[in-house]
């Protein structure tokens, strides 16, 4: 690798991916620094996976520039991939092989010796908390275990960058938290994480910095906290009204908050003091069925930027 230590590990300018007439990624710019945990947040179809596949050198770029670890994916794909760990959206495990066999054969794909592969497989089984299941077939494992195995597998070549495409989609909350804990450890060990997600809590937990993607473009960039400060208020008051009441509300909430957002199932009041907004609602004689005051999240940022929810 030839890049200087301060140069970005991943560098994209005007990065574009087209399929025939459809534009999946439309001239996006971003840089990922070494040791950083960087996220692409956006709904399904925003272009996150296409971007990841270009970084992973399994999809040629249509336009713009992209360098990964100072190298060009077009001509040095194999060299780049040698230093990447990839966790695809859908598991690509051989479910008829054992847990350990899946790890060791993957290590062999990187040209590691059998002895080296054996040693690393043992360490990774421990890391993924799968040592007890090492010699079991993969088929009967739970979704969370398969996901942990996929992550363990992606680490067999001791990658510089770990690419995680929707790492916890489809997992139950407990499995997600266990996975986040493992990823957090990797981050602390200095592994550069690049992940896509449509879960705002995941992005908040794991990302130092992220870009919000919508309709093939990047619509905002920053740390989760900076994005919330910039695009939302400190607090949000969520009101739920009986069916039909919301339509009859017109104008009655004006002036209570910085911004009022009407969703099909609830009304959001954006105000720095959520309690005060809730009191004001009450003083105007409105009787919502439930009132919830909470801190702003990336979900609110996304709503503000696109007018839509992340998960539709």
């Amino acid at each position, binding site marked *: 690798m030839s890049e200087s230590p301060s140069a970005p590990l991943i560098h994209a300018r005007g990065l574009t*991916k087209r*399929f025939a007439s459809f534009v*999946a990624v439309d001239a996006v710019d971003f840089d990922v620094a070494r040791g950083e945990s960087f996220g692409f947040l956006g709904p399904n179809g925003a272009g996150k996976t*296409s971007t990841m*596949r270009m970084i*992973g050198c*399994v*999809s*040629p770029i249509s336009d713009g520039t992209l360098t990964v670890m100072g190298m060009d994916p077009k001509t040095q*794909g*194999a*060299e780049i*991939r*040698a230093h*990447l760990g*990839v966790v*695809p959206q*859908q*598991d*690509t*495990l*051989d*479910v*008829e*092989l054992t847990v350990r*066999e899946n790890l060791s*054969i*993957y290590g*062999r*794909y*990187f*040209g590691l010796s059998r002895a080296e592969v054996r040693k690393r497989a043992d360490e990774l089984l421990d890391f993924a908390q799968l040592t007890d299941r090492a010699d079991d077939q993969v088929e009967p494992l739970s979704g969370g275990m398969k996901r942990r195995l996929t992550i363990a597998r992606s680490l067999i*070549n001791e990658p510089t960058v770990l690419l995680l495409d929707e790492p916890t989609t489809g997992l139950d909350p407990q499995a997600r938290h266990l996975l986040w804990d493992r990823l957090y450890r990797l981050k602390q060990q200095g592994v550069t994480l690049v992940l896509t997600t449509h879960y705002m809590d995941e992005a908040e937990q794991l990302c130092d910095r992220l870009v919000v993607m919508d309709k093939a473009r990047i619509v905002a960039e920053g740390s989760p906290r900076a994005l919330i400060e910039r695009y939302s208020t400190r607090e949000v008051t969520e009101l739920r009204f009986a069916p039909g009441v919301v339509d009859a509300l017109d104008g009655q909430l004006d002036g209570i908050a910085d911004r009022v957002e009407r969703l099909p199932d609830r009304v959001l009041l954006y105000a720095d003091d959520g309690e005060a907004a809730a009191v004001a609602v009450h003083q105007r004689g409105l009787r919502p069925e439930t009132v919830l005051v909470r801190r702003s999240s990336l979900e609110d940022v996304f709503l503000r930027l696109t007018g839509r929810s992340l998960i539709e």
Partner: protein
Amino acid sequence: MTALTREVSTLGRVFEYRLLTYRRTYRASLFSSFVSPVLFLTAMGVGLGGYVSNGAALGGVPYLVFLAPGLLAATAMQTASFEATFPIIGGLIWNKVFHAMAATPIAPRDVALGNLAWIAARLFLVTGIFTLVIIVFGAYQSPTVVLCIPAAVLTGMAFAGPLAAFSATQHNPNRFASIFRFVITPLFLFSGTFFPISSLPASIQALAWLTPLFHGVALTRQLALGTATQDPVATVIHVVYLVTLAIVGAYLTTRTIERRLIRG
């Protein structure tokens, strides 16, 4: 490392994966590779062949000796056809293991060539065992019978290449049944395996000439009977035809798998 050794080393990793998965079933597989020729040669070669006279059309040899090399070539075709269909879409669609490989330094070309190398190894095993059975049955006339092994491997690869290329364009196995029913089985029956194609109408004979199994059967039979030197032009035509198909097929497999793994 030269480009060639690097290529061999990376496709070797794909080969190693196929070997690892084969280890799960190798006992049953080797057993049937041995039992199947024994049963076929006993029933059809010895049993049915007892009612067949050693006519000039058979080259003046007992039916068993006529049949054995034909069956060998046809078996290579069947083994290759199976290996070049289901495992290919399996790796592309069912368990997506080929996609996992493509995320590592292994290139799509290595995936294609590694799989074809594995099929060649499987063919070597199957046809080697078959040839051993032929020798035990005494169903040959020349020591060149051992060359039936590479000839049958080549026959198999003439099918494996084009079929693997086709498989890599498919999104489900639905068309495989049609291929087996309308291509592989008719070829098995009418390519000179069980009777000389000279007994077929002239128009069908011409058609048979165009099919790879006809050339595979003719080549292995020449080698088992030791008649290659009598008609070297035919031998060369058979080999060139089969090699061409195998190479064109391997090239197309590389292209179709590349397109599949490096899709957008």
